[in-house]
């Protein structure tokens, strides 16, 4: 889950890392007040989750409070990559001597966090790594030993930084590494980390991503920041169709029938499980089909949930037919999914034989499931029909129907 810059800066500040005396607001008049308090040139920064703010005009410089207000009005109205800003940061334009970079991420291969440090900041660290590889230090640290200052020292020193800079940077890097672990972040980055004319260091921008699975452990922090439980902070906001999918999934606690993502095709998909859904979605597209949605069923969902998901997909505007397909199931029961999707058709006054292009779920309780499908004349397939072939049959049927 990605944080906005104003939230990330608050997290950094709480960890004891120096930040500028910035202010966050959703109101241009208040921006003027903040700029007046700051007494000097300011930077007005749009608060969006998307990158590319600078290029889009979401970062503006002001010399006076009046100018700050004028910029604030424009930036608050400016959509960036499809996102309206949450608000703006009014930040003192710091008197910077040099920009540094420090970040912590997971290394999934080493299965440890890794600190990345560079005396070249303010630009993408990937670019620095490519152009000046000797200016980027990396150091893994243990998941079970306490973090030591020496680890921060080593990564900083490895880039050639020494003297009082090194000594002042150690506590900042240490605090960031600890914050990363304690707050279950998947990314904790300060870029740039500015060195001021007086030799002190201050965080000028921060990026933080918290692992979704760990949100429950940080309820107080999230509440303090005003992050609601319903905010997914995905690459884009969920659509009403996707929110309805989440409601279906939370009908009861048995299994999964959700993870719905909206697409604009005509073939509705009731598919599963995790890997099967990825495979089937690719397969439908490979055969020229146009999926109306992505979803996942698995873990033996109830009839009610399977029915709810099928109904949601069947009622989506533009959906002509649905395909009900899964990789071989060992836990989910074929007959329960069959009952759910047939019930959905019947309750909507639709003919299951006509609406369900194909049902391909082999595995546990398949004989019982196939008997139900037989009764309603729905075309079904067992494991002798591959996932790709099942997807192909569904696509053929819907293209035949459209012609």
């Amino acid at each position, binding site marked *: 889950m990605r944080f906005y810059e104003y939230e990330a800066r608050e997290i950094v500040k709480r960890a004891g890392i120096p930040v500028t005396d910035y202010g966050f607001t959703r109101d241009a008049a208040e921006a003027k007040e903040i700029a007046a308090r700051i007494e000097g040139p300011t930077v007005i920064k749009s608060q969006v989750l998307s990158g590319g703010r600078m290029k889009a005009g979401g970062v503006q410089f002001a010399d006076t409070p009046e100018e700050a207000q004028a910029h604030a009005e424009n930036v608050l109205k400016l959509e960036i990559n499809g996102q309206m800003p949450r608000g703006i940061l009014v930040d003192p334009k710091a008197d910077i001597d040099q920009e540094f970079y420090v970040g912590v991420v997971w290394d999934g291969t080493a299965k440890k966090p890794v600190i990345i440090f560079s005396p070249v900041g303010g630009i993408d660290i990937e670019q620095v790594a490519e152009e000046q590889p000797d200016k980027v230090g990396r150091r893994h640290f243990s998941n079970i030993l306490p973090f030591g200052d020496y680890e921060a020292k080593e990564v900083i020193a490895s880039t050639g930084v020494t003297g009082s800079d090194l000594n002042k940077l150690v506590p900042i890097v240490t605090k960031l590494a600890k914050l990363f672990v304690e707050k279950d972040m998947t990314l904790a980055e300060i870029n740039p980390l500015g060195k001021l004319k007086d030799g002190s260091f201050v965080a000028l921008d921060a990026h933080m991503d918290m692992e979704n699975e760990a949100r429950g452990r940080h309820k107080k922090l999230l509440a303090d920041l005003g992050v609601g439980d319903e905010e997914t902070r*995905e690459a884009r906001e969920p659509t009403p169709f996707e929110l309805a999918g989440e409601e279906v999934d939370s009908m009861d606690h048995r299994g999964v029938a959700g993870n719905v993502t909206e697409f604009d095709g005509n073939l509705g998909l009731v598919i599963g499980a995790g890997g099967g859904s*990825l495979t089937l979605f690719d397969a439908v597209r490979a055969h020229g089909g146009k999926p109306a949605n992505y979803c996942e069923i698995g873990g033996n969902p109830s009839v009610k949930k399977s029915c709810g998901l099928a109904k949601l997909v069947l009622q989506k505007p533009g959906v002509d037919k649905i395909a009900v397909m899964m990789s071989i199931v060992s*836990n989910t029961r074929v007959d329960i999914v069959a009952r759910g999707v047939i019930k959905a058709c019947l309750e909507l006054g639709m003919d299951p034989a006509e609406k369900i292009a194909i049902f391909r779920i082999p595995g546990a309780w398949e004989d019982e499931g196939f008997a139900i499908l037989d009764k309603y004349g729905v075309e079904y397939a067992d494991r002798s029909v591959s996932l790709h072939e099942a997807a192909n049959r569904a696509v053929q049927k819907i293209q035949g129907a459209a012609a």
Partner: protein
Amino acid sequence: MSILVNEETTFIVQGITGREAVNLTRECLDYGKGAKVVGGVTPGRLGREVHGVPVFDTVAQAVAHHGKPIDGSVVTVPPAFTKDAVVEAIENGIKLIVIVTERIPRGDVAQMVELANLRGARIIGPNCLGIIVPDVIKMGGIGGPAKDAAKSYTPGSVGVISRSGGMTTEMSSTLTAAGLGQSTAVSIGGDAIIGSSYAELMPLFEADEQTEAIVIYTEPGGRMEAELAKWVKDNNSRLPIVAFMAGRFMDEMPGMSFGHAGTIVEGKEDTATEKIARLAEAGIVVAEEISEIPELVKQAIANRKG
């Protein structure tokens, strides 16, 4: 032979009285020659039985009752308690831990894995269905009830490693239908950090005489495939590998996660396209469809024997 487990392997089920764990225990007892489930642990349930398996409050009690070290544990406890359960197993001498539980924060997983490495133990998962040696032993929910697992898995020479539990069975079933059995199939889990990656299991398959080829199921997200490609190149592996990559559509949707927690395209290197290129460079054949896999495996084995 097989990797990780064999007909002598003893294991416990932690969280054995949960609904899914009760089913899983039944399935494991019924499969093959009958797995040696020597105990179960649920705090506060000492003295009960699950399908004849004695239940204990602690792993230490289970080990004491067994009278000698226990080889493995299947961990099914809720995410908030998983780390403690795994540490308990490791500190009581268990060397093979299959974590079924989903939605464990990766910081917890990384701690468990680092401790396991220090103690010479191995973790499979989390968010996985476990390990199966066809007709011999099943450790975890993989393949489902014994009679269903028997339809999908047959003994043979192909090692299967998969980030998706369901696709482990789908691929094995496809191999079985084409007359290709499996030496061992391992569901390694779909999370961003897991106990055992492809590259970490390869040396075991390499040393297993029964195994003649490897089939893997992969997804976007992470660098596990690049790690495998590097391992294959560095070790001059005797085993041909056939890979299937799902989730190719995700390349168009960076920042979105589908299927498993570990599938999120964050950079250029973890897209499906990039991974397919890396695998191909290492001489790993990438199948377009699951149904092509058996023929590609047969060709690959024939080429090696040349």
